[in-house]
C-alpha cells in the first residue's frame, strides 16, 4: 500500500535537513547563492525579518510569484512562511508545491487564539517555540519540526540561546521526574500528556529541533549546535551582511564542524561586516516577535 503525507514522511524530511543551514532568501538570485554556498534548504520570503521589523505594518505571506520563482530556481527544498492561524495562506503555499511551511511569528498573526491545525495538511510544518510547553503544543497540533523563536531580525543570538537552554533544561527535568509527577507537570506547562511521556522516553523532543532568530556569525551557529540543536535557520544574518556568499559558506562549514574550534577560527576570518545588531532591551515589548503565538 502506498501512502502520502504520513507523519513519518513529514518528520522524515526534517531529519534530512539536520546538521544543515536553512537560509532566508527574497529572490531567485539569492536562492542560487544560498544553494551554491551549501544551504540544505531556503526560506522564500518577500522581505527578511530585519526589513519587516523596519517597515512595520502588517506582514503577510509572500506573493506567490516570488515563491514560485524561488521554487523553480533551486533543487533544494523550499520553505515559506504563513501567518500564525492563517490556514488559507497555508493552503495556498501547499498548492504552490513548497516543501515545508513555517507558521511564523515573523509575520503578523492572523489569529490571536488558535494556531493552524497542521494535521490536515499533506505538507509538513515547522513552528517556533520558547519553551517545552510551547514546543509540545505545536507538535500536538501537527508540527513536524520545531525551531527556537529567538528574536528575528536582530542579529542578536541572546534570545535563541535563552529558548534553546529553556527547552533543554525542561527536557532534563522531565527525564529525572518520577512518572507520578508527569501529569501535573504537563498541566503546569500546558503540554499534551502523551507528548510529555514521549519526551521522557526519548530524552529529547519527538521531532527535529532547529535554532532560529538572531544567528549572524559562524560562531553563533556553532554555539547553538553545541547547546544541542539539530540545525540552523539564518534569516537576515546572511543577506544583510557585507559579503553574503562568504558568510553563507562559513556558517554552513561551522554548522558541520561545530566542535572544531581551529576550523571555526579559520572559517570566521575575513568575512567582512556582519549585519548590524539590535539590543533586545531597545525593542519595546509590543514589537517583540517572540511574544506572538502562545
Amino acid at each position, binding site marked *: 500500500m502506498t501512502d502520502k503525507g504520513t507523519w513519518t*514522511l513529514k518528520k522524515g524530511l526534517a531529519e534530512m535537513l539536520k546538521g544543515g543551514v536553512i537560509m532566508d532568501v527574497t529572490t531567485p538570485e539569492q536562492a542560487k547563492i544560498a544553494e551554491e554556498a551549501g544551504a540544505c534548504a531556503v526560506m522564500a520570503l518577500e522581505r527578511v525579518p530585519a526589513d519587516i521589523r523596519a517597515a512595520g505594518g502588517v506582514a503577510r505571506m509572500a506573493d506567490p510569484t516570488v515563491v514560485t520563482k524561488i521554487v523553480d530556481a533551486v533543487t533544494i527544498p523550499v520553505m515559506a512562511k504563513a501567518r500564525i492561524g492563517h490556514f488559507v495562506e497555508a493552503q495556498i503555499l501547499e498548492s504552490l*508545491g513548497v516543501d515545508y511551511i513555517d507558521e511564523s511569528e515573523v509575520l503578523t498573526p492572523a489569529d490571536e487564539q488558535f494556531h493552524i491545525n497542521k494535521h490536515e495538511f499533506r505538507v509538513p510544518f515547522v513552528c517556533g517555540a520558547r519553551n517545552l510547553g510551547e514546543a509540545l503544543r505545536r507538535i500536538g497540533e501537527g508540527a513536524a519540526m520545531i525551531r527556537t523563536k529567538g528574536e528575528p531580525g536582530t542579529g542578536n543570538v541572546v534570545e535563541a540561546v535563552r529558548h534553546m537552554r529553556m527547552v533543554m533544561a525542561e527536557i532534563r527535568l522531565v527525564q529525572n521526574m518520577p512518572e507520578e509527577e508527569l501529569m501535573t507537570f504537563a498541566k503546569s506547562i500546558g503540554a499534551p500528556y502523551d507528548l510529555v511521556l514521549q519526551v521522557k522516553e526519548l530524552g529529547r523532543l519527538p521531532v527535529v529541533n532547529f535554532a532560529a532568530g538572531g544567528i549572524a556569525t559562524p560562531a553563533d551557529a556553532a554555539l547553538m549546535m553545541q547547546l544541542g540543536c539539530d540545525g540552523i535557520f539564518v534569516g537576515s544574518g546572511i543577506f544583510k551582511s557585507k559579503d553574503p556568499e562568504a558568510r553563507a559558506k562559513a556558517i554552513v562549514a561551522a554548522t*558541520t564542524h561545530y566542535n572544531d574550534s581551529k576550523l571555526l577560527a579559520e572559517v570566521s576570518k575575513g568575512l567582512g561586516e556582519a549585519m548590524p545588531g539590535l539590543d533586545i532591551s531597545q525593542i519595546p515589548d509590543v514589537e517583540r516577535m517572540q511574544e506572538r503565538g502562545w
Partner: protein
Amino acid sequence: MRVGVLALQGAFIEHEKILKELGCETIQVRKKEQLEEIDGLIIPGGESTTIGKLMEEFELAEGIKKRAKEGMPVFGTCAGLILIANDIFECSQPRLGLMNIVAHRNAFGRQVDSFETDLDVKGLGDQPLRAVFIRAPYIKEAGEGVDVLAMHDDKIVLARQGNIMAAAFHPELTDDTRIHSMFIDLIEESLNSQQSSAK
C-alpha cells in the same frame, strides 16, 4: 567491525542507531583521516548538494574514492545514492562516481509527493519491505555489473555493484533492519577476503 557514517549533513544519527542495534561499532566521519579507521561507510540522506560541497571542501571525496577502489563497502541512501552515481541526470553537481548508474534527482516530485510503500526486495524472501521515499531520486539507468535488487513503478530503487550499494529510500527511518544487515554482510565478505588474501 567499525562502520563510518558520513556526518557532514543529514540523517546520520539514525543510521548509527540501527548499526549499533545490529552490534556494529560506529563513528561519525567528518575528516579525511577517519576514512582509514573504518571497514565500511554509509553516505546518508540529506541534501546531496550540501554534502557534495562539504565533501570537496574538506577533501573527503578523494579518500572515499580510494577506499572504495580498495574494496571497502560503501552504501548510499537517497542523497547518498546521488553522490555515489557515475552520472546525475541533467546535473553537474559534485559526485564520487563509484557505481555504474545514472541517478535522477527529486525524480518523484516535491515533498507533497513523498510516499511510503511496500517493496519486494531480491534476497529478502516473501516479507515485503516498508520503504520511505522523501523527495527521492531513482536509478534512471543501471549499467554493466549492476545488480538490481528492487523496483517501484518500473523504476530501480535498490541496487548493488560489487562492494557498492545504493537505495533511493530511507532504511534508517523504519524499524526493519534487513537492508542494514545486507550491508553488514557485504562488509563481512570484504573483511574475510582481505584476511584470506593476507594469508
